[in-house]
């Protein structure tokens, strides 16, 4: 009886899972494996091989790699500095870093479009200082720049969390046993934060790989990512079959990258949520 009640409580979640997760995936699979007349075909998936699609996928991977690498290089030293200052100040600085996340994603992108435009704030300031203007709007540089801006907190937080978990006495114990700062970094700090790094990489790389809004707004139609190709297939060409096929290919890349990273994270700390 009790067991039945408890299962009943899980009902709403079951409806959610089936209705909003399983059904859509089945539908995407169905569309991906059929053509517009409903016959089974692999052509939608093999369409990734056409130059325009493979070029978009390659560019997506390249920009996502770049974005992840820049986020990692920025976040790791920051997390180290953060974990060494007073606790009260730590919370404030972490708060400042995640503050932009409280603003709408689209608004943030639009704001950067305004800031980076030819007669935007940044170029006006540069002009008055006599520095040549920054002409990066509508280029991959602007897209990567905005990706880093948007996804940086997702890299900082897991690394900072894993760093903050290392007790001060662990570091002191290492010093006590004769370790200098280089040894402490490579033998203690780095191994103990690797799970945070893995989580951060996944949480930045996956959204960067699949994003289309940033390239849409800051790329000016010149930066075509795989996300934009899929969006166009659905929204402009009304070719749900092609869109689904390319989505499946992208999904494979996402899952593969997650599996690759998780394999390096033996403790499974944090990365498990993905």
């Amino acid at each position, binding site marked *: 009886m009790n067991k039945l009640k408890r299962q009943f409580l899980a009902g709403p979640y079951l409806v959610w899972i089936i209705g909003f997760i399983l059904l859509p995936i089945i539908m995407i699979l169905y569309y991906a494996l059929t053509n517009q007349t409903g016959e089974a075909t692999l052509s939608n998936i093999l369409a990734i091989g056409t130059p325009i699609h493979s070029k978009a996928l390659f560019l997506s991977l390249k920009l996502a790699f770049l974005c992840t690498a820049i986020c990692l290089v920025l976040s790791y030293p920051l997390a180290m500095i953060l974990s060494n200052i007073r606790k009260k100040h730590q919370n404030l600085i972490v708060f400042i870093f995640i503050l932009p996340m409280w603003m709408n994603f689209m608004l943030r992108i639009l704001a950067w479009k305004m800031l980076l435009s030819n007669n935007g704030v940044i170029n006006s300031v540069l002009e008055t200082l006599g520095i040549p203007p920054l002409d990066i709007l509508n280029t991959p540089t602007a897209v990567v720049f905005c990706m880093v801006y948007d996804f940086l907190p997702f890299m900082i937080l897991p690394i900072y969390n894993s760093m903050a978990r290392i*007790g001060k*006495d*662990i570091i*002191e*114990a*290492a*010093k*006590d*046993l*004769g*370790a*200098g700062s280089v*040894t402490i970094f490579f*033998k*203690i700090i780095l*191994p*103990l934060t690797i799970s945070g790094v893995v989580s951060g990489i996944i949480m930045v790389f996956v959204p960067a790989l699949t994003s289309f809004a940033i390239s849409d707004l800051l790329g000016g139609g010149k930066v075509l990512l795989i996300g934009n190709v899929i969006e166009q297939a659905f929204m402009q060409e009304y070719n749900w079959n092609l869109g689904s096929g390319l989505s499946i290919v992208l999904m494979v890349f996402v899952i593969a990258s997650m599996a690759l990273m998780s394999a390096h994270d033996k403790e499974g700390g944090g990365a498990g949520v993905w």
Partner: protein
Amino acid sequence: MSKKLIDLVHISKSFDGAAVLDDLNLYIRENEFLTLLGPSGCGKTTTLRLIGGFDTPDQGQVIFDGKDITSLSPNQRQVNTVFQKYALFPHMTIAENIAFGLKIRKKSKQYIQDKIKYALKLVNLDGFEGRSVDSLSGGQQQRIAIARAIVNEPKVLLLDEPLGALDLKLRQDMQYELIRLKNELGITFIYVTHDQEEALTMSDTIVVMNQGYIQQIGTPEDIYNEPSNAFVADFIGESNIIDGIMVKDRLVELLGVTLPCVDEGFGQQKPVDVVIRPEDVELVDPSNGQLAGEVTSLIFKGVHWEIDVMANGFEWLVHTTQMHPVGSHVGIHIDPFNIQIMHKPESSDERAVETDE
């Protein structure tokens, strides 16, 4: 006596403007088991951290084996520490934990293997090489922490309340283990604790500290039997501490009666603290006692009864093997040599002597 190994000279240290240690002078002999004992905030852990190199004094010097090591960092000192919370490296196996210090000093593989085996045997954890830190109990982790420290053959082992997190039985076992280790290794132990029993059991020398000042240095017997002031008497074991007046040599007045004692040299008609241990208070027939009173509380403690006796306006704490029911009238007798006379704290410097209660 063996030679001085560590000498702390005129050490002062404050954190955020609050003085923790003030002009502390202390030396530690080679091969000694020295315990820094005191309530939390008395400066005992700070003293240990100064020797370990985790903090540097604002003033004064740390001398080690004749050399000034005040400004040396922890990794350049010939001491190793066993931390309160073990501080084992969670991402390493037990063997890797123990080998950590040896690998840094580039010892040969064979040497490291032998040392790991030897150290694990010493702490009674043979065969634990491949285990993970998580799979060990608190007591086992603490023993690994000790093993990790001693494989480096330090001249001094610093122990910062290492048994604080263990349960009573385990704590007692570990106390004997530490005494055995100290004897087998023949190195100096500096031990920090707030547990007076632990200090009495293990130490060669006890340093009682309060509010950044050393209150008394001595053997466990000295500290217990001849506490130098009321704070030490109160902190080490239980005590009846009574205001008294030293009438003249060998005669003290307290609670309206005059009792013979064995102390001399306090002057005449001088206010003093009188300390009497609860096991030194004899309960006798009311007519035979120096004082007469009434039992107000009775608690069975296993080895003895703990009895409160109200006599002459003071509640006496008494430990005795004889039962006296609540409400019964008893006499109190104290032998002269069981009365300890202590100076009252006079100047503000001695304020640290006052107990917090």
